[in-house]
């Protein structure tokens, strides 16, 4: 049975309006409206055309309903720059991630979620509380994506070809999800991961919305990634931008983020902060991060595909089973290759499969 909701999802994923899609398959916009409302079932030839126009397999349109993400439940970081089309496309990618996630959870035990509700705390206090709960002390976080996965958050990548979608997170029942845009720099993406964690623990049950919520998540991220005691111990006094450039390696953040943090902590004066901001721009560090880090990737999905690879199951097979375009699955999984994951696992005894 044709599922009209899946048509809407695929169209949104492709950032097409009803008018544009109608033009692409030579029908009226009203026809598309009726297909999507379920008033009319599209004939087979129209379904084939829809499949081609949207680059989704025909079988995709005959699956059961998919959990939809709405902009009311997802916390988007970038608010003003993002268009509705971009937002809907990102949310549609999230729905496809649900499909994949459910498929994996039927076959694998993944870490249970270990987040706590810290909505009553100030963001800085919440960051400290969560560090305490997770026994992180004041240590730097080696890998934010791995940490989130270890604590039961499902992390997916978004390849949206736009920088206006930063990242978003959502609670799906009791399961937290984070989506990171790989168009951003690795440092930015890492910061996004911490920012989204902030939303998950601070705003699970409502709380502030819009700018206020974003500001809180930012404060959480700064405190979580760069704990004040550690920053003060490493950089009690900052005199030059070079010091910040060297020290930022410890926390794997951007120079700009550390400069901002140092300013907020009162280690860098207003005047020096502004000077460093100007120097950052002059030296081109806003376009190209000095001592850039490698992009953080999922270890959970890598382990899943390493196991599947042993059973001769590839990512393409999974995409086919889910009736999803291979690129959609690939983009959600940080472009991981199953075979590569297997090779990495053999060469890295530290990444044990439990």
């Amino acid at each position: 049975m044709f599922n009209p909701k899946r048509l809407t999802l695929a169209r949104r994923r492709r950032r097409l309006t009803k008018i544009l899609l109608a033009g692409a398959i030579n029908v009226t916009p009203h026809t598309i409206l009726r297909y999507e409302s379920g008033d009319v079932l599209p004939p087979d030839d129209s379904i084939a055309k829809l499949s081609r126009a949207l680059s989704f397999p025909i079988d995709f349109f005959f699956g059961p309903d998919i959990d939809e993400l709405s902009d009311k439940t997802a916390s988007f970081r970038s608010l003003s720059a993002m268009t509705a089309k971009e937002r809907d496309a990102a949310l549609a990618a999230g729905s496809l991630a649900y499909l994949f996630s459910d498929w994996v959870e039927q076959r694998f035990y993944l870490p249970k979620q270990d987040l706590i509700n810290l909505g009553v705390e100030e963001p800085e206090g919440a960051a400290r509380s969560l560090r305490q709960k997770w026994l992180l002390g004041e240590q730097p976080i080696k890998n934010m994506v791995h940490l989130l996965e270890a604590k039961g958050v499902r992390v997916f990548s978004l390849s949206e070809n736009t920088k206006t979608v930063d990242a978003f997170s959502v609670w799906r029942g009791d399961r937290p999800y984070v989506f990171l845009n790989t168009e951003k720099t690795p440092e930015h993406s890492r910061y996004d991961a911490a920012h989204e964690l902030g939303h998950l623990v601070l705003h699970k049950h409502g709380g502030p919305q819009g700018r206020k919520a974003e500001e809180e998540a930012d404060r959480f991220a700064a405190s979580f990634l760069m704990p004040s005691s550690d920053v003060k111990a490493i950089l009690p006094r900052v005199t030059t931008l070079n010091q910040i450039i060297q020290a930022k390696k410890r926390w794997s953040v951007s120079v700009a983020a550390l400069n901002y943090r140092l300013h907020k902590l009162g280690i860098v004066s207003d005047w020096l902060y502004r000077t460093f901001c100007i120097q950052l721009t002059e030296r081109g560090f806003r376009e190209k991060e000095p001592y850039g880090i490698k992009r953080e990737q999922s270890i959970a999905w890598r382990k899943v595909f390493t196991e599947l690879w042993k059973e001769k199951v590839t990512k393409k097979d999974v995409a086919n089973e889910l009736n999803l375009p291979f690129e959609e699955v690939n983009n959600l999984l940080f472009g991981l290759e199953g075979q590569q994951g297997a090779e990495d696992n053999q060469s890295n005894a530290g990444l044990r499969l439990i």
Partner: protein
Amino acid sequence: MDNAVYKEAWDARWRLKELGLTLEQLIEVVRASVAGRGDCTDNDPPSAPGWSSWRYGIRRLREIFRQEGWEKDDTGQLSTIANHERRIKVAVCNTDDGTAIENRIPRNRSRKGVISERATDRNVTPYIFPEMEEDAARNTADYVTWYLCIYNEDDCVRAELSCPSAFEAGYFTRYSERIFILSEDDWKTMDFPQQDDNSGPDIEVSVRRK
């Protein structure tokens, strides 16, 4: 000729303790002084880096030590902190590359005036009629004045706390005691701490086939 040079950290700490100071506190003052110099740009007048370095050093010196009971003292426009119990004062001075080098001595960058000359004289020959000073309750005429000598050029920073004992033509020419605070290597280690590029504990993510 120098009477005493405390160049090893343990030795310096011991002598500083006697003076009611610590190595860490004085290094913090040096850092502030370097920050002051770093605030200057090519658009500032040539004297600005030295002045700014001195100003920030003095400010930080006072911020730190006034909390511990020292008082600020500007007698004769010589800006110092004063410890009335120990009867000593500490000033900040920009010095040349002889700073914290054993077989050389720090020479002040800019010529000093009569107040510094008088302070040096009193380091050697204490004033015998302090009650004659204007403010007898707080007169500091017989105090020993130490100088935190800071050398800061390009990326090289060195510092010592020294007690001048001779003064000629506007420059300190001898010191009765020199306590090394910061060597070039010390500064480089502090300025650019060697960080592990991949810090933090490993994170284990458990994934198991059903």
